[in-house]
Structure formats: structure tokens, C-alpha cells
């Protein structure tokens, strides 16, 4: 009953250079499940894999049945690590670093009240959490310790927000950098006229350039055709199909390379041969209609149909089973 679909496997195997694998789609369709199963399969192939979540309400802990939230990369199995980024913790640590830097730079006993207030207020901004996660991802990815990075993405809207945020940030920082450079020019002019030595390197400029490169690193991965494989997860239902189409259009606008579509929760056709209630029969018929529509719309980009299982996927045993369904039972 559990059909092995190899198009997904072939796509991944054919492109070993695509080290960043992402499953995107609406919430609750199985992104985390697929991320875990794919990570499991790749690890069983001897690849060193990190599956990590950028979702503040991450569910990797649930699926692996281990509390890994905010604990850095946690080894789950041989070759398989999982990580859930704790944004709050990251922000607190970051604030601490800023305060320390101020104390060190000016030899203050404590951070001036006005400045402290600002640090507190800035951290309460809603964009803070997203930016912190975005930034933390750069640290995870840039180190390059793993053969594969599997992003357990946040729901679609957020992923798009990440991308648009990167674009806006980049533009702003480019502008600010230009202003800063102009300031350095004036400074240089004054120094020359007063015949002083050239001033030391502008540290703010250095910081700005670093911020920009971090933002770009993060966004570049999401849009890198060479190194990234992005899979849409959908289920055979009308609303999901329409939303996926819409999202695919938006992703195309941000140049996210979509590698294919994976259909989840397909009720096994074999059930039709059994004595099943009309309710289930109708559902199968409905799914057939949408499956045909999905095939028509996405054609050969539909890489796998994953059956609805009789229970939810959590714990290594179920992940192993799903990996078997998605990538072949023998594990080869």
C-alpha cells in the first residue's frame, strides 16, 4: 500500500550541491514531518545533516520527542542533528553584548539610563524576534559544519516576510552606508586641510558592511538556484491548491527557485477495494479530482504523493517509516 515514489529522491540525489533543503507551505500540512523524514534519510545515507527550525513555535522537539529548544544543535541519531532557535534567548544575549561593548568602549560603570531605556524599548519591537532569528540562522549556516541543512520553515507568509525584509534592510543599509562614506570624505577633507593625520577607520562603516553581508547571506541562500532546493508541500484540497499557486507566484517574484511539489495526506486508493463508508469514498473521489488538477497544473514538478498514515508522525520509528515511504524502504 505504501508506494515508493522516487522522483523526490532522484531530484535530491541528482543535485548533491543543493545543500540547503527547505519545505515550505501553509501551516499544518507536514513541513516539519517532511523535514524530519528527509533529514533522517540523508543521515542514513551517511551525510551529516542539521535540521533546524526558525519558527518561534517550532515543533522539532515534538517530532523527535526530545526537548531541544534553545539548546543549540542536539544530536538525535548518528549523523543527524536538530536545532530549534530560541529567539528570546538570542535577543537577551545580544543585548548583553551591546551593553558590555558600551561599558568597555567608554569605561562606564553602568549603561546610561537613556541608552538603557532604548535598549529595552528596541527589544520589545515586534520585528526584533524575526530579525534575531534571521541573524541566528546566518551563524548556523555560515559555519558550514554539515553536508546538508534542512530548514523547517515557518509558514509561507513568514518566509515571504523574511525575503522582503532582507530586501528592504539591504536597501536601507546601502543608503546609510553611502551617507557614512560621505561623512568619512568630509572628515578626510578636514583632516587634510588641517594637515592632521588621516583619521582611523570608521568602525560604524565596518559594522554596517558586516550587517549587510549577514542579511545578504541569509537571503542569498533562500534564492540560490545552485545550492538550494525548495519544495512546496500541499494537500489535495481546493483552498490549499489555490494558496500554493498564489504563493508560488510570490516566491517567483523573489527569485526563490522552486524545485518541486510534494503532495501530502493522500488517502490510499487501495481502500476503495474494501468496504468503506461513503464518507471516506467521497473524500477519495474529491482528492482524485484535485490530484488530477495538481498534476495538470504542476506537471512533472510533482515529485511525490505521500499517503495519509493511520497515525501521526512523531518519534524515530514513525520518522523512519515515513522516510521509507518517501525515499525507499531499503534505505538505499
Amino acid at each position, binding site marked *: 500500500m505504501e508506494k515508493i515514489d522516487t522522483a523526490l529522491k532522484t531530484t535530491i540525489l541528482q543535485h548533491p550541491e543543493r545543500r540547503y533543503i527547505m519545505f515550505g507551505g501553509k501551516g499544518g500540512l507536514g513541513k516539519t514531518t517532511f523535514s524530519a523524514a528527509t533529514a533522517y534519510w540523508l543521515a542514513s545515507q551517511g551525510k551529516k545533516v542539521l535540521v533546524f527550525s526558525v519558527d518561534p513555535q517550532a515543533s522539532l522537539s515534538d517530532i523527535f520527542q526530545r526537548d531541544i529548544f534553545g539548546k543549540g544543535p542536539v544530536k538525535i541519531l548518528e549523523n543527524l542533528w536538530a536545532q530549534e532557535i530560541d529567539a528570546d534567548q538570542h535577543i537577551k544575549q*545580544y*543585548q548583553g553584548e*551591546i551593553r558590555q*561593548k*558600551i561599558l568597555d*568602549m*567608554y569605561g562606564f560603570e553602568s549603561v*546610561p539610563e*537613556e*541608552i538603557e531605556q*532604548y*535598549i529595552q*524599548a*528596541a*527589544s520589545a*519591537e515586534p*520585528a*526584533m524576534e524575526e*530579525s*534575531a532569528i534571521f*541573524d541566528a540562522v546566518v551563524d548556523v549556516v555560515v559555519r558550514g559544519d554539515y553536508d546538508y541543512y534542512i530548514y523547517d520553515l515557518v509558514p509561507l507568509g513568514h518566509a515571504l516576510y523574511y525575503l522582503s*525584509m532582507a530586501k528592504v*534592510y539591504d536597501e*536601507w*543599509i546601502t*543608503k*546609510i552606508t553611502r*551617507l*557614512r562614506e*560621505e*561623512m568619512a570624505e*568630509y*572628515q578626510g*577633507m*578636514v583632516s587634510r*586641510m*588641517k594637515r592632521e593625520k588621516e583619521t582611523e577607520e570608521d*568602525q*560604524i562603516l565596518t*559594522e*554596517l558592511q558586516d*550587517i549587510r553581508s549577514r542579511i545578504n547571506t541569509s537571503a542569498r541562500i533562500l534564492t540560490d538556484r545552485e545550492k538550494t532546493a525548495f519544495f512546496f508541500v500541499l494537500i489535495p484540497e481546493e483552498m490549499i491548491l489555490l494558496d500554493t499557486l498564489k504563493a508560488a507566484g510570490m516566491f517567483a517574484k523573489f527569485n526563490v527557485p522552486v524545485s518541486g511539489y510534494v503532495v501530502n495526506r493522500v488517502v490510499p486508493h487501495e481502500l476503495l477495494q474494501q468496504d468503506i463508508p461513503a464518507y471516506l469514498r467521497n473524500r477519495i473521489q474529491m482528492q482524485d479530482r484535485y490530484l488530477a488538477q495538481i498534476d495538470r497544473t504542476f506537471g512533472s514538478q510533482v515529485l511525490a504523493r505521500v499517503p495519509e498514515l493511520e497515525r501521526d508522525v512523531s518519534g524515530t520509528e514513525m520518522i523512519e517509516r515515513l522516510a521509507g515511504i518517501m525515499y525507499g524502504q531499503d534505505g538505499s
Partner: protein
Amino acid sequence: MDQKPEPKEEKKGFLRSMQEIIYGMASHDMSRYALRTRASMEHLFILITMGDMIGVPILPPYYSLRLLPYVVPQISTWKRRLLREKDVSDAMF
């Protein structure tokens, strides 16, 4: 024989101060202007990066925090300048 080097040095010293006077006449204003421009730019820079402080959010706060340590000394002057209805220097120069 001994006196000879002295006028030369005097001449040299005189030339150097003349040079500096002429140079100063020409460039003092310019450098003052450049410094003022730079100061305005500095305030503009702080406004863009730390705008949150006065309720004008421009740069995302996560990144302004990284720049904060470098502008700590300028913050109070900046706020004072923004609160001023008219810049005193406008009347002075």
C-alpha cells in the same frame, strides 16, 4: 661664518609661517564649513539609525542596537539639536 645659518633658518621659519597664514586664510573657512556639514550628517545618521528613540522607526531595531555603542556620546547633543526650534549656529554664522 657662524652667523650664516641663522638668517637662513629665520627665513625658513618666516616662510613657513607665511605659508601657514595663507593656508589658514584659504582653508579655515572651508574646513569649518566641512566640519559643520559633517556634524549635520552625523545628526542625520543618528536620526536614521536611532530614530526609534524619538519615535521615528527607520532602521530595524535589531541592527540599530549594533550601532548604538558608537553613537552613545552623540546621543544627547543630537536630541538637544532636534529639540531646538532654531539652530543657534544659524544666527552666529
